[in-house]
């Protein structure tokens, strides 16, 4: 910025004198251009730690703390916790394990933020302001004075993408990635419940099927960088030593990077508001029935319930995938979500206690016993009349919600709620059934219910009208119960009416009319020009 402003001045000054030969003028222009090129280099990045400190106090202190120890007033509601700039252990770097990050590494984080964490990008701060903050943040740790970090040299991506997945899967086994990340990468490995960072806070093994939440960004190159630099301060090790010792090869690591990149979608799932429930002759059976495979899948993000105390700021479940199908008489919905623990599981007790200690500081009672996983699917009690619906968090006294409540050990019941924590079981006799399966870090629950319900007080599903639906998920092994859990906004389920041939009439008419008009226009034109 500064450089650009200064460099504009000499250019203007050569344009002014109009006398003199053109050759002199060209020399002048040449000098000006040279100056313009040199000046930014000479003036640029003057980093001003004092001005950086003022910006830090305004925007960073609340999370990273007055002294930069990552313990600001907002920190205790975050997991992972904000970076401790004094301890200066940085996860996302391009430098070797144990080294400090480069200036570029830190600037990138300030610019883009860290996906999957509470750290946002800072487009409201200019480049120079970010450099000043950088200078201040570095001044918080004596390590930056002693060391000049350098980018770790890595080989270039040989490409090959999906072709490398098979070999990558083998490397996944050799390097024991499954020990933390689990067989299918959903963060459910057998060490997962024991993981903690260098400050003793619990760390979730990354769910490799949700790459849009990777702290260091998605794509094979970013993943390969993490393999070699490690994620310092967390249990994720660097493979640089293994590479140098010949335990793994360059080829292995690139195969693995492409395999991991292929475990999730290439971009974050897009949000659609309506679950399109197709009509089929026959409904699929259990959660793993192949008949589910060709039905469209809809993703809905979930976030912590922070509306009503006690709150959950960093929940386990961050989204559900929903498929729906009906046969004119019965509705089947399959809800799928990742949860590394099949709760209640005593193997996760230590984890549950650590999460409670790290997050549940609001004084509300913390259950000590292992808890089940739960899922609540909310609908209005009756089809909405007009726009009004029940409150999206379990309704209220005026408008209750109709619930499908699933319990990881007891199956599903129908319920009714008039607000958070007011759930009561009601057996409407509607015949709700559920079958569930937990496999390698993923729940799949299939609910089935007849479309119509004899009980007038309970929702009937009908074709055509979109019906509001919302989700509430609890991970027992993270101590989630009651109001602590993950919630979604209202979305819809829309039951497709059977496709009639009538839908082809309008397009055909449009085709014929447009074609006819075109022919007519051409005829007229030809007649008038030739005649």
């Amino acid at each position, binding site marked *: 910025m500064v450089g650009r402003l200064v460099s504009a001045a000499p250019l203007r000054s050569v344009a002014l004198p109009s006398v003199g030969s053109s050759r002199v003028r060209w020399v002048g222009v040449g000098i000006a251009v040279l100056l313009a090129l040199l000046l930014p280099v000479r003036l640029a990045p003057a980093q001003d730690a004092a001005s950086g400190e003022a910006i830090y106090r305004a925007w960073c202190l609340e999370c990273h703390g007055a002294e930069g120890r990552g313990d600001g007033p907002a920190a205790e509601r975050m997991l992972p916790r904000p970076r401790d700039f004094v301890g200066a252990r940085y996860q996302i770097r391009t430098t070797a394990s144990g080294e400090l990050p480069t200036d570029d590494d830190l600037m990138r984080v300030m610019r883009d933020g860290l996906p999957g964490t*509470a750290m946002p990008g800072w487009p409201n701060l200019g480049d120079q302001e970010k450099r000043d903050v950088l200078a201040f943040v570095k001044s918080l740790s004596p390590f930056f004075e002693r060391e000049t970090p350098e980018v770790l040299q890595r080989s270039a991506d040989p490409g090959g993408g999906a072709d490398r997945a098979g070999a990558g899967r083998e490397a996944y086994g050799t390097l024991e990635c499954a020990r933390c990340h689990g067989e299918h990468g959903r963060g459910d490995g057998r060490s997962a419940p024991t993981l903690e960072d260098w400050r003793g806070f619990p760390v979730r093994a990354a769910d490799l099927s949700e790459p849009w939440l990777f702290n260091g960004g998605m794509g094979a190159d970013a993943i390969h960088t993490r393999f070699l630099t490690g994620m310092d301060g967390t249990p994720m090790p660097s493979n640089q030593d293994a590479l140098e010792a010949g335990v793994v090869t360059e080829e292995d690591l690139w195969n693995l990077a492409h395999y991991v990149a292929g475990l999730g979608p290439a971009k974050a799932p897009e949000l659609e508001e309506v679950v399109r429930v197709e009509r089929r002759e026959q409904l699929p059976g259990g959660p793993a029935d192949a008949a589910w495979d060709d039905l469209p899948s809809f993703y809905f993000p*979930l976030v912590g319930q922070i*509306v009503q105390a006690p709150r959950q*700021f960093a929940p386990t479940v961050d989204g559900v995938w929903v498929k729906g199908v009906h046969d004119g008489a019965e509705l089947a919905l399959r809800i799928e979500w990742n949860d590394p623990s099949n709760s209640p599981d005593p193997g996760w007790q230590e984890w549950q206690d650590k999460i409670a200690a790290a997050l549940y500081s609001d004084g509300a009672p913390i259950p000590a016993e292992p808890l089940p996983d739960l899922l609540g699917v909310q609908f209005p009690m009756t089809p909405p009349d007009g726009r009004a619906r029940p409150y999206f968090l379990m309704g209220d006294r005026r408008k209750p919600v109709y619930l499908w409540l699933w319990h990881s050990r007891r199956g599903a019941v129908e319920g009714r709620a008039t607000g958070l924590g007011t759930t009561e079981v009601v057996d409407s006799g509607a015949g709700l059934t559920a079958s569930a399966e937990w496999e390698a870090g993923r729940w799949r629950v299939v609910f089935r219910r007849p479309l119509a319900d004899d009980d007038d007080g309970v929702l009937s599903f009908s074709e055509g009208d979109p019906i509001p639906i919302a989700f509430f998920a609890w991970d027992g092994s993270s101590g989630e119960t009651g109001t602590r859990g993950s919630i979604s906004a209202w*979305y819809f389920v829309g039951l497709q009416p059977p496709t009639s041939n009538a839908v082809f009439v309008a397009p055909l008419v449009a085709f014929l009319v447009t*074609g006819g008009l075109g022919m007519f226009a051409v005829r007229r034109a030809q007649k008038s*020009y030739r005649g």
Partner: protein
Amino acid sequence: MSRAGSYLRHPFWQALGVLVGSYLLFKFGIGYVLPAIGVHSAPVPSSVLLQYMLTVVVALLLYVSTNEGRWSKFKEPLRQVMVDSDKRALRVVLLVALPLLVGFLTYGRVRADVGAPASLRSIHPAPPNQITFRGETISLTGLENPLREHGSFEEHLAVGATVYVQNCMPCHGDRLDGEGPAAHALNPVPANFTDNGTISQLTESYVFWRIATGGRGLPVEGAPWNSAMPAWEDLLTVDEIWAVTLFIYERSGSTPRTWEESSEGEGH
């Protein structure tokens, strides 16, 4: 004269160029290129895009038809396609392709699909004259932020900052722009305080009301069933709410509406 040059000067190709260019500008320039270079913007809705494009078409027709020579030159390529015998192949292709395209677009429209109903809501519904705060009645009419008159402004601001980051930041964001880590899962999205359509349109008493009673305190036209805004009277004190109100105005660089100028228009 080069071939490309003659195309550039020809009114038909000029018009076509402007048409395609303005479509690209409206469709991608406003929605995607501007945000990419750091200018605040959002994609243009398709109905608005259609209006823009109709305006462009009308303007183009006006332009080409105001001059007789330009008009006949403009029509020339159209005439060639419709009449010339050496353009027969192109003519047949167009006569089939265009109606097919229209039929296909029609199919996309009539195909049975259950869409989400329109979610109409009043963004700033009229506030009540008074509210009850944990059972205590507070009159909103004429109410000002008492912290602006009493005590240390800096201290109030510090309290407000702490309240904000502990409670509001997950949704309204570090930058107060409504883009906190939980915002993506909520509908309606959390308010962006840096947008001059939000708190700078409102009195501090209005903001106090929205914070204190949250989503459940909204009237029906505000779609209370969707709002994830907690009723902060359950979790914060009166002073904490006034402090965080002070903070969001101060930090976002907004100024509240005052009662003198808003006595009539309050609440829209």
